[in-house]
């Protein structure tokens, strides 16, 4: 290996360590913000492509059901034109926004800001999404993010025109929750495979499959009463102190296009 290449390899190592040091101390945030400003429009274009791909693969997953429906739809396909397809797309978008609007009407005390998901995390070890709203629109770190389905996560990084949302399915996320009805308390966190688990539930607490799990508001990180998921399985031996609940997330994380940020709730700071 030539010394010139070794030199550039060493420079790359130095640049990596320096960037990491700056990023870890939060000093690189302004520079990242400037670069993000260039990335967001591009990500926006690609996320529209992703929406189409998501719909396509979602349909593939429901192939069994779709087969019967396909027969019926086939007769209609001939009548579809490009204009109608575009109108359909606009209608779907309208529907999603309307659902979000209905959700905001249910929570009158909260103030919301709508944002579009522009990209997913490229790291295999993290579950985050990037959205197209940032500090210029009033976003702050820690704000809760929801959809009409339920809790999505919280704002973890804010740039002037974009922000990153840590999903509740991330292993580093922790949400204080209660089971509706029994009020059994626990902490919901994510797993590497994207699943959701409620831990530290007292063995004596009564929990059944299908019970809803909501944010408790304990700890002051999330407003209380937000739907997190539904119990699909109860794990843990009777001799163990705690039981573990496997949850079906309320929000459809694989198909999120728009999210709502609750702007009038900021997490409590202990210091």
């Amino acid at each position: 290996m030539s010394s010139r290449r070794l030199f550039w390899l060493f420079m790359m190592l130095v640049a990596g360590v320096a960037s990491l040091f700056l990023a870890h101390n939060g000093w690189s945030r302004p520079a990242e913000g400037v670069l993000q400003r260039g990335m967001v429009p591009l990500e926006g274009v690609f996320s529209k492509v992703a929406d189409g791909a998501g719909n396509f693969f979602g349909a593939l997953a429901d192939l069994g059901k779709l087969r019967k429906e396909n027969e019926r739809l086939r007769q209609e396909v001939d009548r579809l034109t490009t204009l109608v397809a575009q109108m359909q797309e606009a209608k779907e978008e309208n529907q999603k926004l309307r659902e979000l609007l209905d959700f905001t009407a249910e929570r009158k005390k909260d103030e919301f800001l709508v944002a579009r998901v522009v990209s997913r995390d490229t790291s295999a070890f993290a579950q985050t999404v990037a959205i197209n709203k940032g500090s210029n629109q009033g976003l702050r770190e820690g704000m809760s993010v929801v959809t009409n389905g339920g809790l999505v996560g919280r704002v973890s990084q804010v740039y002037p025109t974009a922000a990153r949302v840590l999903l509740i399915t991330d292993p580093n996320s922790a949400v204080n929750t209660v089971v509706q009805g029994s009020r059994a308390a626990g902490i919901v966190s994510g797993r590497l495979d994207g699943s959701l688990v409620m831990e530290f539930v007292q063995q004596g607490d009564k929990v059944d499959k299908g019970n809803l799990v909501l944010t408790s508001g304990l700890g002051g990180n999330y407003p209380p009463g937000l739907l997190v998921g539904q119990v699909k399985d109860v794990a843990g031996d009777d001799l163990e102190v705690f039981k573990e609940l496997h949850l079906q997330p309320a929000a459809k994380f694989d198909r999120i296009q728009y999210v709502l940020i609750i702007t009038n709730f900021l997490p409590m700071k202990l210091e």
Partner: protein
Amino acid sequence: MGVATIGLILLVAVLLQGSVIPVIPMFNVEPGLVLLAIVGWSFLRGAGETLAAAAIGGLLLGLSSSAPFGTDLLALVPVAFLLILAESSAVEKDLFFSLTATFVCTLIYQAVVLLILQSLGQPTAWLPSLLKVAVPSAVVNTLLMPFIFWLLQRVRDRLPVTAQEGW
């Protein structure tokens, strides 16, 4: 020309990796398009452009990942080192060699990312992370490599025949 081309390819790769790839269901495994492009380009264009590709790829991944900026750049240093070593070795560069390199490079990249995250104080479950994320991702990357290689080859063939650029 070569560096500009791989820069553009990597930009498209990182945008696809952050948008289209996550919505394609693949048993919770996501291929690393950027890593594949770097490894593939290294075999096609040589060690000089490998370093440039790794640096550009690391910066772009840093912008689109929640990990602290610099994590990906740093994780790609050993990958670039291995690829340059592989190029200068006397081993025959056949399909098996490039597939093995893809598998090994993915594992090393993911392991270094984990190591950096752990050193920054993030809780890291090594065994589940390696078994559920790193190894499946290495397998998917290896399976995808022939297709990515074919794509990159087509791009390379359109470039004017000049001396290789890079560092």
